[in-house]
């Protein structure tokens, strides 16, 4: 079980460097995003279409996945199905073994982080090399992600320079971001040119045509999906889009919401195997891994519409102060607060639905209009109902309160007691609550008392 958001957030809030980096980064990208979406006169119509396409894809999911399988297979790809992460990891490992690959290059993929693919491969003697700059930084320093889009947003350049000098380069680097980046380029280019197999995630998989899409900036995605002889893509089943045409919506929504650009530098779209061009063996692993469990909740299933843009993180007053690691999941921020408890279990993340002020900024920013605040409230209800069924102290207290509120005489007696007993008595009864808050002062006369005696008091009191 996780340590809980309140505990970890208290620690991350004390990290001044983190707060400075995050504050600067999220403020910059918020302003940029508003410019990028303000430019499109039809932004709201695109959001409506995006939300509907996702809802349609989920409602017709069996059909869409079967179509996707048929089209990928028709173009020479191999489609695998995985009930859970372990099964997906085993498929990737067996493909690697069948090619004698001791190293694989990887495109940034949260789905593979979610299932712990790198560790699973390492257990079989296969090392997975992260090729996205931020993922490489995390991998080399054994660190965890703090942002969907910029996973190393909590690390500053001095730390990264020192890390690279220690691990991947013999030369001394300057403080220039370009020079530090150059070191990663040199290190990884040798890998791209020689490693026989790559693993990627997928931003979209188009059922109609069998096209898989990877949206990226650095070119590591193109390298991985082009140069190795074998490519394995791990795709969550919720990433399927029914029609080719649907891409015209998402290729507008995603870049403007995530990096706040009109278009990201590179989008790779491929279908199965293309003779003489790119990998000559392609495997697509369709991963459930808890997604069907999310789908079973009629309200909560909306979280599966997420396209991992991270706009909700950047606008969130909670995220931008506590940072991603406080969420203890590969999915941080508002979307993480609704996705992680559903995907990995309410028991695992019972505090995340409260990691929000319910201000609604996340909903306004979401390109597919996921009603994150409503989902948070819904999940709070689910957590409470589950706790209630377990007769926790809080549930017992609530039961007692319900008993008091259920009868007039009991309620009135309780009000009298409250007036008398406020102070030491109440503080003893509610130690956790009164540690951080003042108890409200009960009125000298309750409404009920006043109503009963109104005829006897001053003129006008009864009006």
């Amino acid at each position, binding site marked *: 079980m996780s340590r809980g958001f309140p505990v970890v957030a208290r620690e991350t809030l004390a990290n001044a460097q983190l707060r400075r980096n995050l504050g*600067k*980064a999220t403020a*910059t*990208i918020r302003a940029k995003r508003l410019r990028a979406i303000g430019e499109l*006169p*039809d932004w709201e*119509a695109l959001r409506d*279409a995006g939300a*509907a396409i996702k809802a*349609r894809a*989920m*409602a017709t*999911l*069996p059909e869409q*996945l079967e179509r996707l399988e048929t089209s990928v297979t028709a173009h020479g790809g191999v489609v695998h*199905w995985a009930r859970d992460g372990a*099964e997906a990891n085993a498929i990737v490992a067996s493909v690697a073994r069948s090619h004698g690959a001791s190293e694989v290059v990887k495109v940034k993929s949260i789905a593979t982080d979610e299932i712990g693919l790198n560790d699973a491969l390492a257990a079989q003697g296969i090392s997975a090399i992260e090729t996205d*700059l931020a993922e490489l930084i995390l991998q080399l320093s054994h660190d965890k992600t703090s942002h969907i889009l*910029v996973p*190393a947003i909590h690390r500053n*350049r001095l730390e*990264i320079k020192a890390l690279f000098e220690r691990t991947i380069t013999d030369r001394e680097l300057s403080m220039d*971001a370009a020079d530090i*980046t150059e070191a*990663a380029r040199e290190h*990884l*280019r040798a890998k*791209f040119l020689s490693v026989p197999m790559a693993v990627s995630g997928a931003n979209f998989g*188009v059922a109609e045509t069998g*096209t898989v899409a990877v949206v990226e*900036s*650095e*070119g*590591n995605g*193109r*390298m991985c999906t*082009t*140069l190795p002889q074998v490519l394995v893509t791990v795709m969550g*089943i919720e990433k399927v889009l029914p029609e*080719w*045409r*649907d891409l*015209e919506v998402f290729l*507008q929504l995603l870049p403007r919401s995530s990096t706040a650009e*009109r*278009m990201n*530098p*590179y*989008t*790779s*779209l*491929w*279908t199965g195997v*293309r003779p003489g*061009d*790119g990998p000559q063996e392609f495997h697509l692993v369709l991963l*459930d891994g808890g997604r*069907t469990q999310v*789908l*079973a909740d009629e309200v909560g299933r909306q979280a599966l519409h997420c396209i991992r843009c991270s706009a909700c993180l950047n606008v969130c007053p909670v995220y931008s102060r506590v940072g991603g690691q406080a969420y203890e999941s590969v999915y941080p921020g508002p979307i993480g607060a609704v996705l992680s408890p559903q995907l990995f279990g309410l028991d695992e993340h019972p505090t995340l639905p409260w990691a929000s002020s319910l201000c609604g900024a996340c909903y306004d920013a979401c390109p597919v209009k996921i009603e994150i605040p409503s989902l948070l409230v819904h999940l709070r209800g689910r957590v409470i109902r589950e706790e209630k069924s377990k007769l926790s102290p809080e549930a017992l207290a609530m039961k007692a309160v319900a008993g008091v509120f259920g009868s007039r005489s009991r309620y009135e007696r309780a009000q009298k007691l409250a007036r008398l007993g406020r102070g030491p008595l109440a503080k003893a009864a509610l130690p956790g609550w009164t540690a951080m808050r003042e108890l409200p002062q009960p009125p000298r006369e309750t409404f009920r008392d006043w109503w009963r005696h109104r005829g006897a008091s001053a003129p006008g009191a009864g009006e």
Partner: protein
Amino acid sequence: MSARAEVLDRIRRALGPGVAVPEIPREYRQAGEVGGDVVALFCSRAAEYKATVRRVSADELPGVVRELCRGKRIAVPPGGPDVLSGVEVVVDDPPLSPQALDQLDGVLTGCALAIAETGTIVLDAGQRSGRRALTLVPDWHICIVEADTIVAGVPDAVAALAEVAAEGRPIVLVSGPSATSDIELDRVEGVHGPRNLDILVVT
């Protein structure tokens, strides 16, 4: 039960009977609905990504290419742009190895089409674009864009590429040189993809 059958069964059970299938409201700007000076828009948008954009006439093109590529070793796709007199070209036929591509100074190709609103060039693995590795490994990409292939927006491009996608040909959308902002959100142009992108718009 196979994993396939089980996952599909779990999905059907999760959805339950009679789940509502919404219609898609497509009130956004459709292919063919946006006009204007797409050539000028494309040039200014592509230039904003730190690509070098030049507008040239068909007559000027060979001279401009010669000037750009003088003294350089430049790869071209087989049957690619025919504007290379006076330039040392290496034709990708038989296909060059990634190591050989890595030794070249650059690559010169055409493209399938370009998108004005986003400043994007679209490579479709056809004769003009060449295979994917060709425009990826060399550090410099010179791309010739015929003005009449520039479309207004993303929906126009997606519609125009429907056939290519149905055939199963790979497509790459390129919007400026490769970039990263992973170090303190400081944008660095040029990571793994070509660090320099020259676009020649032929009008």
